[in-house]
């Protein structure tokens, strides 16, 4: 065995410091804390939806919020697990959840297209920009937690980890917005809330790989 190799190992051994292994549960606890902080911040600064505060939430808004929450949890789980690589690991569950969530923007687009073809084009409400902006901003809390976690770990695919971080952040942010957003129409939720997740996913995929490479 080459001497340089032995010397190299000796130098690594000399540099050893105790490290806390990255536990999936600890990572999820941090992601949940970020989700909670985002939700409380939105509720405290912007208030709760009237129907939610009254204890009678609108069915579609409630369903959509639940879907976004599940997507936030599933994609956060997958992102956190990516910090601990191992050949043979499969993380495909989040994809099915994302597909399920995509039904909302998909249905909204079908509605827009069918109305357009029937000669009754729908005007998209611009107020959704507020949801988009607030959701993206609040999602940054989750993004920060996940990026710090992933940088401690060794994601084997920084591109996928970036995408997952973006999707998790966008869905966590828009879940928080769902507590305040007064709209409960499919068009608003599908287009604006869906767009927040898609935009954050794209940004995560484009920006984060350089940050997460090791």
């Amino acid at each position, binding site marked *: 065995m080459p001497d340089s190799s032995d010397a190299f190992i000796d130098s690594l051994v000399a540099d050893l410091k105790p490290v806390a292994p990255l536990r999936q549960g600890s990572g999820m606890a941090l992601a949940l804390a970020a989700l909670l902080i985002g939700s409380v911040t939105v509720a405290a600064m912007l208030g709760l939806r009237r129907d939610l505060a009254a204890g009678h939430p609108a069915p579609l808004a409630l369903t959509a919020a639940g879907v976004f929450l599940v997507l936030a949890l599933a994609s956060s789980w997958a992102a956190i697990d990516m910090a*601990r*690589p*191992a*050949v043979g690991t499969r993380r495909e569950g989040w994809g099915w959840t994302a597909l399920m969530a995509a039904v909302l923007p998909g249905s909204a687009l079908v509605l827009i297209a069918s109305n357009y073809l029937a000669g009754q084009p729908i005007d998209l409400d611009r107020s959704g920009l507020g949801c988009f902006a607030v959701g993206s901003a609040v999602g940054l809390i989750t993004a920060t937690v996940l990026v710090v976690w992933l940088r401690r770990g060794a994601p084997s695919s920084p591109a996928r980890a970036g995408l997952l971080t973006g999707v998790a952040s966008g869905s966590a942010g828009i879940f928080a917005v769902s507590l305040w957003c007064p709209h409960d129409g499919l068009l608003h939720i599908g287009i604006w809330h869906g767009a927040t997740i898609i935009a954050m996913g794209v940004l995560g995929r484009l920006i984060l790989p350089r940050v997460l490479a*090791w």
Partner: protein
Amino acid sequence: MIADDATLSRLAGLAQRGDRQAYATMLTACRSWLLRYYRRKVPPDQIEDLMQDTLLSVHRKLASYDPARPLIPWLAAIARYRFVDHLRIAYRDAADATLEDNTAVVEDEEQAVIARLSLDRLFEALPQAQSQAIELVKIEGLSISEASASTGQSESLVKVNIHRGLKRLASLIERA
């Protein structure tokens, strides 16, 4: 013969708690494993550098190992990541290097594990044109024009296949 996976896992757990003796034993075992792992796909004159890069990643990313899981799949993921990174920055001076299939004889069980985690396995997931372009240019060190003549692909297609192949390899690190 390297230590079995259960022993390596235990050593890694001790190393995470700062046990230097266990860490030295673990790294030495990892070195032996890596040398055999890289032998089939990396020119001999580059193996030492790549092995040291990988051990450095093992050192920096020790926290990413979960002691409740087997160590070898974790080590293989790090080895593959460094290998794909190495392919990206491979220099033309590898041209004269030749690969010898001098894999040591290993026991059946160990061989089965290595086969499942191997770099060959990674290349199996690529379309043949992509794996051929990468093997010729990035591993055997041929020029683009030489690879083009050898494969019948145009020079631009060789470049495209290398680019797409490396991108795909990077997304398949954890594929068993």
